[in-house]
């Protein structure tokens, strides 16, 4: 039974995707039923596995050539079980939610096929036991996000956004693949289990290439989790339908990068970890600043995701070589639930206002959409790290890590970013739900139908209670960390303050400070006051620090220039001068030689006689 279950988790979404594309492209209801059924099956199977706390690997050889042996295996351990729950749980909620959100859209079968393909690929990443197999699903996730972002491919913005997303991911995958090749070249194997045992036996196994391998594999994570250099695609990915943004850009896809880092944590050495930490920190800061000045509801959430991902990557980096990525995974788990809730809440607002996404045209929705407001409020508080909620505990662990490993500069950065997070989230909350209606759209807004609000409530449960489920203890077991004695829930409530008071209090202070500033600025504001105060900095933040333009000129520009040179060389010199030149020369030679035949008998006789004399002379006096 144990061998079949993992396949029962992985395969249903793939089969659903195939049957929809082949059979049900014209029947939305059948497609939806197939897709939701598949993800439900996967959820059930992963719940059973979770209950059994199953572990072990079942696999078959996918490729066996020369020195390269690639197994296609499914690996179960506490970390992957947790991720299974996150993907299938949040994914399932979003599948149901999408049925309501995309009411009447003709392309729904294609949407559900894409969603199932995405779920299959994401489950593949979580379960894969081999680095190359992970790369395969890495790319499949990339292509399914391309299909989903570009769902409304008639709209140019969506088409451009999907292309941009896939290409940026591909740049990351380029690094990832090179990392794989390097790992295989130095150790001869790509299997994670084998690599782990070999590295625990003799840590120096990777030799000089260790840092390079670490950073190259980190490239894959940077591409997928939209970290600093390759973060440009995430905001544009909001062009896709909101459930897509929720599923892909909040809960699962972007988390894949962090999951990868935790999977290959034993590979990363000290220098690689410091680089990872700084990149994470930088992304968190930048994203938070940008989020402060965005007017589009979904873009703010996108930048907030970017910022939280920066947190997780920072947590991995700061953990140090003998530490564990538990903090990052813990924050990932809690973040998945409340960020998905935020996105679905936003979706419900957008749905109610007939696809209006500019927050300065909303206002006073609290009264009209109570359920959405309450769940949105709970998720915001969790995100900012207000104590009883799950976000506080997971963020606090990261603060503690930064504090204990006396990475003082990073600690200050994290605290400052926590403040910023609270600032832009409260700005959002106040402008959208509180204050006067800033245009006539909110007047006829009404609460969303149950098919959309029920998932909101379902997701609210983990948002509030996840802090107490001891997810960090559960994760610790995968890394051999002894679980701390389980006190009553009361002790647990104040545990952070008793163990490490300074980081906990600093975090709380930042939250209160940020909330106050936002309250001051945005309570009842009709226009955004910040541009007046900050001036040019606000414009920079609004235009995303001009990274898009920089990349266009830098990477795309140079590549197109090289392409122009190559094409010109190919057209004029290689095909033109060389080939046409030769052709012309031969033709000219023919025309010239032909003129020797003047047609007059006289010349022929002369030439013949001359020929004879020439031959005789040459032969005799050779």
């Amino acid at each position, binding site marked *: 039974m144990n061998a079949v279950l993992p396949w029962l988790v992985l395969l249903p979404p793939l089969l659903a995707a195939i049957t929809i594309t082949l059979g049900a492209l014209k029947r939305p209801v059948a497609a939806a039923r197939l897709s939701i059924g598949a993800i439900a099956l996967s959820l059930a199977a992963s719940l059973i596995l979770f209950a059994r706390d199953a572990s072990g690997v079942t696999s078959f050889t996918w490729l066996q050539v020369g020195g390269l042996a690639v197994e296609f295996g499914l690996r179960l351990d506490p970390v992957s079980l947790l991720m299974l729950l996150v993907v299938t749980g949040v994914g399932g909620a979003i599948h149901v939610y999408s049925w309501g959100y995309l009411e009447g859209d003709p392309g729904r079968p294609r949407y559900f096929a894409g969603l199932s393909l995405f779920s299959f690929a994401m489950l593949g990443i979580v379960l894969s036991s081999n680095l190359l197999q992970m790369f395969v699903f890495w790319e499949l996730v990339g292509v399914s996000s391309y299909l989903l972002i570009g769902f409304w491919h008639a709209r140019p913005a969506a088409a451009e956004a999907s292309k941009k997303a896939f290409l940026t991911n591909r740049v990351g995958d380029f690094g990832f693949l090179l990392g794989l090749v390097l790992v295989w070249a130095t150790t001869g194997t790509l299997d994670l289990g084998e690599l782990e045992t070999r590295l625990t036996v003799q840590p120096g196994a990777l030799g000089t290439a260790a840092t390079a391998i670490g950073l190259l594999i980190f490239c894959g994570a940077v591409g997928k989790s939209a970290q600093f250099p390759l973060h440009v695609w995430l905001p544009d990915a909001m062009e896709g339908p909101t459930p897509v943004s929720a599923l892909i850009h909040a809960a699962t896809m972007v988390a894949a990068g962090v999951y990868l880092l935790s999977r290959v944590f034993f590979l990363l050495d000290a220098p690689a970890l410091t680089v990872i930490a700084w990149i994470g920190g930088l992304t968190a800061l930048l994203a938070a600043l940008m989020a402060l000045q965005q007017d589009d509801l979904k873009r703010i959430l996108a930048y907030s995701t970017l910022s939280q991902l920066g947190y997780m990557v920072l947590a991995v980096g700061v953990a140090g070589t003998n530490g564990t990525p538990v903090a990052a995974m813990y924050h990932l788990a809690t973040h998945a639930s409340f960020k998905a809730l935020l996105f679905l809440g936003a979706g419900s607002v957008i749905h109610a206002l007939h696809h209006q996404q500019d927050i300065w045209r909303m206002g006073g929705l609290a009264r009209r959409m109570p359920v959405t407001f309450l769940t949105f409020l709970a998720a915001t508080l969790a995100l900012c790290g207000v104590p009883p909620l799950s976000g506080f505990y997971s963020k606090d662990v990261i603060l503690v890590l930064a504090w204990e490993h006396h990475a003082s500069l990073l600690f200050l950065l994290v605290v400052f970013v926590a403040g910023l997070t609270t600032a832009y989230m409260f700005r959002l909350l106040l402008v959208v739900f509180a204050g006067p209606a800033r245009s006539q759209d909110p007047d006829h807004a009404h609460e969303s139908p149950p098919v959309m609000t029920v998932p909101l409530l379902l997701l609210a449960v983990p948002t509030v209670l996840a802090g107490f489920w001891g997810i960090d203890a559960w994760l610790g077991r995968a890394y051999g960390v002894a679980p701390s004695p389980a006190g009553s829930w009361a002790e647990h409530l104040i545990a952070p303050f008793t163990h490490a008071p300074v980081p906990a209090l600093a975090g709380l202070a930042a939250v209160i400070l940020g909330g106050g500033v936002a309250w001051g600025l945005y309570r009842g504001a009709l226009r955004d006051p910040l541009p007046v105060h900050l001036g040019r900095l606000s414009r920079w933040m609004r235009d995303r620090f001009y990274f898009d333009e920089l990349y266009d000129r830098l990477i795309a520009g140079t590549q197109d220039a090289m392409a122009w040179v190559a094409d010109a060389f190919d057209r004029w010199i290689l095909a033109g001068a060389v080939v046409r030149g030769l052709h012309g020369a*031969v*033709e000219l*030679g*023919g*025309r010239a*030689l*032909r003129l*020797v*035949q003047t*047609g007059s*008998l006289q*010349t*022929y*006789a002369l*030439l*013949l*006689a*001359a*020929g*004879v004399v*020439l*031959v*005789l002379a*040459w*032969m*005799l006096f*050779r």
Partner: protein
Amino acid sequence: MTDFAAIGLELAVAATGLAVLLLDLWVRPEQRRWLTWTAVLAVAGIFVASFALTLPEPARLFGGLYVLDELALFFKRFFLLAALLVLVVGQEFADRFPAGHAEYSALTLFALTGMMFAASANDFVLLFVALELVTITFYVLTSFQRRRVASLEAGVKYLILGALSTGFLVYGLALIFGAAGTMNFEQLAASPPAVLESRLLTVGLLLVLVGLAFKIAAVPFQFWAPDVYEGAPLPTTAFLAVGSKAAGIVLLLRVWFVAAPALTASWAGPLLVVTALTLLYGVLCAIPQRSLKRLMAYSSIANAGFLLLGFCSGSAAGVAAVLFYLGGYLFAVLAIFLVATLAWRGTDTDAIADLAGLGQRSPLLAGVLTLGLVSLAGVPPLAGFFGKFLLLKSVLASATLHPGLYAVAAVALLAVVISLYYYFGVIRVVYWGQQAAAQQPPILLAWPARAALGLCVFGLLWLGCFPANVLNLAQLAAQSLPWR
């Protein structure tokens, strides 16, 4: 085997020629076609008879003047086949002759006799007589269309330049006779070294080679070919390209490998240069050509270059390659000329552009023309490819001894690629050339023409796909030359 039994084949052909001339007096004009068909059947009969001749060992007759060996037999069968097809082309071309249809067939047969004698030449006297019989007959054949100035002009040009080359040939003969005291090839080869090194013999031999080089139109004696090929009527041009060239080749084989093997062995260098120049000249000049006959002239010059490749390798394999290549060359050239005659029936043009739209008008003719051109270009699965392949193999095999041959192999390669350009240029016109004139009527083919086309196609495909038995014949013939 008595002397006269040996030359039975030649006598039979001469007798047929005379018979055709005589019968022409009693035959009514509309039955003249049947006269040519009887001549064709007779030649076919003689061709079949030639296979009945089995030679335990080569026979030398008429006091060593005439030799009958496998090489001679191979060439006699080759000439008979060529004449057979030329007679059919001549008959199809007859409507454009002012008069004397029977005379045309007779003259073709007399030229055939000359060629068959040339195949068995073992003495400079027979070489001279046979060569002159062929050349003088061709003077008349070239200028047969008296109403067309071009035909007469070609005739005169061929006359003067032919006579000039004969002058050189005869003077060469005299010098050889002076130096060696004998006219016989084998005796010349066996003469003492003092004679072989004498400059007189070298000059004499060179002058004879000039005469033969003129015959096969090798550089620098090829200036006559383009104008004569273009001026002469189609059947004559065909016979010139195949029969007269092959006669030159067989005499060159005899002189080069039998008469003075010691001398010619040291002349490999100059031969390479001549071969390369012939190849390049023929191939380059052919590119801008608009007239099919002139294109075929330059192509025949290039093919002379390819045939000389076999001489450059100087081995039995090279000679076998030359013989096989000639077989493929025969069917290809005659296929092209037969199709040209049929396609241009009634018009006096020879422009390639006038072949436009042949693909639609008559796919059979277009197909045969394409096969012929593709075989000349040397593309499998046709005879031309295997011929060129054998030549390349023999050249590369003996290139290990003297590396100059690699250069000539490279030139040959270039020549093939460039020749592909103009051969496929004709195919282009046939299949997707712009149809200038209105939709001409589809061409109706008499059964003999259809039979001749069938023979050519069969020859091309059989030599291309199942070359084994003809290759064995060629190798057997090559063995009859005295290899050390």
